[in-house]
């Protein structure tokens, strides 16, 4: 089974994402901010990370840059997952190393298509 780390400071969003991901046969881990996500990655690298932008302690973009400087056994795919849909934000996410980008709210089909695009579904 593939693993997905859902990183979001909203418990509700984590729950929704977890539900969708479980119907897509993923094992799901959760983190409430970038720092927690980094800790999770260091203990076990997931196949894919669903990453929120705005979070306390460490934002999604900070996490992504941090991830770029961290040596892990392998690099997880990263799908940015945010309410910002302007080109500046998208560009910044891609530049920081995001593989895909999905705007909230999303449905199952959308998430599945994004996971297919990064090659984990």
């Amino acid at each position, binding site marked *: 089974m593939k693993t997905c780390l859902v990183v979001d400071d909203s418990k509700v969003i984590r729950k929704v994402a977890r539900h969708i991901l479980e119907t897509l046969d993923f094992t799901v881990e959760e983190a409430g901010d970038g720092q927690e996500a980094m800790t999770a990655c260091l203990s076990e690298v997931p196949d894919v990370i669903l990453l929120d932008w705005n979070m306390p302690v460490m934002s999604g973009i900070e996490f992504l840059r941090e991830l770029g400087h961290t040596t892990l056994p392998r690099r997880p795919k990263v799908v940015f997952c945010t309410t910002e849909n302007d*080109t500046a934000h998208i560009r910044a996410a891609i530049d920081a190393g995001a593989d895909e980008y999905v*705007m909230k709210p*999303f449905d199952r089909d959308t998430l599945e*298509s994004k996971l297919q695009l990064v090659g984990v579904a």
Partner: protein
Amino acid sequence: MEMTPIAISALAGLLERRTGQQLNANRRWTIETALKPLLRDLGLETLDGLVIRLNGDDRSPLADKIVDAMLNHETFFFRDLAAFDHFATEGLGLIHAARAERRRLRVWSAGCSTGQEAYSLSMAIAQQTRFQGWDLGIFATDVSGEAIARARSGLFTQFEVQRGLPITTLMRQFDPDGEQWRVKANVRAPITFLQHNLLSPPPPGRFDAILCRNVLLYFSLERRKAVLARLREAIAPDGVLMLGAGETVLGLGDCFTADPQVRGVYRPA
């Protein structure tokens, strides 16, 4: 909202006469949801009221609206990605070899809905250096005038561009336009959108490739055969046809056969 079987039969009959599409027992009940916005716009309470307003006129602007609302326009960019990619590379590869001299490619997206399939084709072909400098024409048709108007606009919502389109492709091939995204002129350029009914004679010319995906499934067996015969008229003798995932020509007459070499490609028999 009250529904009477008579009103539903009348509306299903209209859809069938106009498009050949059949509403099976399950889909009959979705009529209510599909027509709700239209009823609201018209200030009507019931489907009976709508049928009375329609007054038996199959060709009125109101009839157009009703038909549009009842059609399933579900589509997305690069639908069935693996099969689509395979067709765009291997299927069109057969045409590339056969047209190397003339360097001309004509594709028909038959039942194109709001245009995602045609735009995906345009992007997939532009990406292949072997087609650079070729005379490319993509003909995209649908029976629904509303769908064609939207396709022509090249404007897509956030929701629509999220389904199937890689983010880097979105950034490269689209420009933000308010809350929406507009496809760039170079992607739009080779495509001609036209309202057309697949049950009527095909557009003129012979197409090297035809995509008719997720359209046949709503037709009766007889209509499917009739549509395939139309596609047979429209395709070049060495052309390639692609159907939707799970669709086949098996049991639908002898107009097309599966290509023995390339999976998912049908050839005129």
